[in-house]
């Protein structure tokens, strides 16, 4: 589904990604772990097409297409979804209006009929249960004045409604208490399926107790330096990132 080869990218003239390689197949869950500042969000933003992130080398092929050539909205319509580490507040635009506009753009792109207000509402009601989000939040402006936890729930709620093929969750666990974490993880698990893939970006393994990954990658200083199965996350929890750093250092010496 997704092939990243030798991806290099810089922000503000500074090289952050220094050659990232990874492959994600449909049905898989990949965890990307690494200490703060290692480039995890940068990778997520590059995949989503954020302006200001300049790709200086490598390629990303998504469903056989050159992903880096597509405008952000086209990537979204093709099924790429980024749950933001810091969801953006948009005063004056209601959550429902925003989500309906998004969904209909995506449906149009897929050759499906646009949903009218009634059908949209019944879909929303069904999806609300997945993340246990307060219905009142729907009529409020997008993320405006939401608590940290509400913002994260809202991201996963959007994901539930938009049904992406490739979902990238950037630190969706940060700032959540354990109950919220469980609910959100439960929501994500319900969206797992054989034709969808999920990339879970985190620097704690906590979330991975609930969303159990098939693969774990360690991103250090803009490179994936180690990959393994779900047990790698546990090893990282025990030994910390310094351990990987030393191991990698030893190898390259």
């Amino acid at each position, binding site marked *: 589904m997704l092939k990243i080869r030798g991806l290099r990218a810089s922000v503000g003239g500074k090289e952050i990604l220094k050659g990232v390689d990874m492959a994600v197949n449909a049905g898989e869950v990949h965890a990307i772990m690494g200490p703060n500042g290692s480039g995890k969000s940068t990778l997520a933003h590059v995949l989503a097409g954020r302006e200001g992130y300049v790709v200086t080398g490598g390629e990303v092929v998504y469903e056989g297409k050159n992903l880096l050539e597509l405008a952000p909205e086209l990537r979204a319509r093709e099924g790429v979804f980024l749950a933001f580490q810091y969801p953006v507040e948009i005063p*004056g635009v209601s959550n429902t209006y925003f989500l309906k506009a998004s969904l209909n753009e995506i449906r149009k792109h897929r050759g499906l009929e646009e949903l009218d207000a009634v059908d949209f509402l019944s879909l929303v009601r069904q999806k609300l249960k997945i993340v246990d989000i307060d219905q009142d939040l729907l009529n409020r402006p997008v993320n405006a004045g939401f608590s940290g936890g509400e913002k994260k729930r809202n991201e996963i709620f959007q994901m539930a409604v938009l049904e992406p093929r490739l979902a990238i969750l950037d630190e969706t666990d940060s700032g959540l208490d354990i109950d919220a974490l469980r609910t959100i993880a439960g929501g994500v698990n319900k969206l797992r399926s054989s034709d969808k893939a999920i990339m879970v970006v985190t620097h704690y393994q906590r979330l991975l107790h609930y969303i159990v990954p098939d693969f774990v990658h360690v991103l250090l200083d803009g490179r994936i330096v180690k990959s393994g199965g779900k047990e790698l996350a546990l090893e990282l929890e025990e030994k910390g990132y310094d351990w990987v750093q030393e191991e990698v250092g030893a190898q390259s010496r």
Partner: protein
Amino acid sequence: MAEIAERTGSFLEGFDAFLRSAASRSPERLQAMRRSAIDRLASTGFPSKRDEEWKYTNISPVLERVFAPVITSQGNGVARRDVDRFTFGAVAWHTLVFIDGHFSRELSTLHPLHDGVIIGSLAETIDRQFEAIEPYLARVTPHDTDAFTALNTAFLRDGGFVFVPDAVAIESPVHLLYVATGGTGAHMVHPRNLIVARENSAVTVVESFVRISDGVCFTNPVTEIVMGPHASVEHYKLQDESPDAYHVGSIHSRQGRDSVYTSICVSLGAALSRHNIVSTLDGKGAECTLNGLFTATGTRHVDVHTTIDHLQPNCSSREVYKGILDGRSHGVFNGKIIVRPDAQKSDARQTNKNLLLDGRARINTKPQLEIFANDVKCTHGATVGRLEAESLFYMRSRGIGEQTARAILTKAFASEIVDFIKPDPIRAHLDSVLHEQIEHMGEAMIPGGA
């Protein structure tokens, strides 16, 4: 002298003919008022950019043209269906229709009124009962207020007259609908509205300036609002004139004790528009709210000058103006707040927020505080910004196209003002007009600096 002549344009020429045509029907006091207004204009001329109040607005395009006064109304063959789309579908409202500045009884909708209430054409009231008007006319806005008010007073003839006696609340809004036909060549109209809300009365008045077809015209309206103690007036002005039109207008209100005045001015059209809004708090405990929205695209120019004059103690004023500027348009906002020595415990708040959609668009915004009392609360703030890159990306990352995302964010910016509008029909109308306008904004965009 040569300079003054230059700065009176061609306006003096049509005056004598106008005065003669109006003579048979006009009381001598009114004729004298017109004469002294034109004299004042002839002696001082129009302001230039050297004038502090007109520093950023060049009115030469208005002075260089010749605009013919529309002395009698031919109705221009306008039918009811031509004006229906401007009445917001509000059939229960009292709607006074003016075609090129002249009242049309056939096109208007007048419902039965409470005893003592007058809702009608100023010209008709001048002819039939001038004594009802005389105590109020040109009192809030004397003709020597400024050149454009002098011009309006010189050509004063028609407009809306609303009189609400003590303790009467008029339930349905009064709509003064000014329709430019665009078919009469370059012409000028000088609507004069007079709204009198006596003690404990309440009324909503809507003024709208629209066109049936595009054309060059100069609209120079003056609205005077006189409010007694405990009166409540909600006033809306909607300017959506032809892209070739010039609009220079004023709204002056004077409030009595504990009265509440709300003004919302929305300026969407015209090549050049200037709104002077002057609100005088002349009774203890009076409250006024001046809110508004202006938009401009292309090379258009829009200027809003407001003055809130706190004369008496314990008054409060609230003001929020927003500007949306696209293309190479130019906006001006000047918000003056005066707190006079007696006006202790005044509470004034002012905000002006502007959105520039194109790197070439400009705004000059300035708060102007003149505070002569010591126990007052007065806050103000102005911002100039662009659409947030973060918000745009967030929307695009959900599949919404860039142009649509821009339009949604721009509408959201405007919605704070639109949401202030209480009557549903106006809000719905404005929503759709704005939607249409905003959809086309930023199409030939040049990105701004950082």
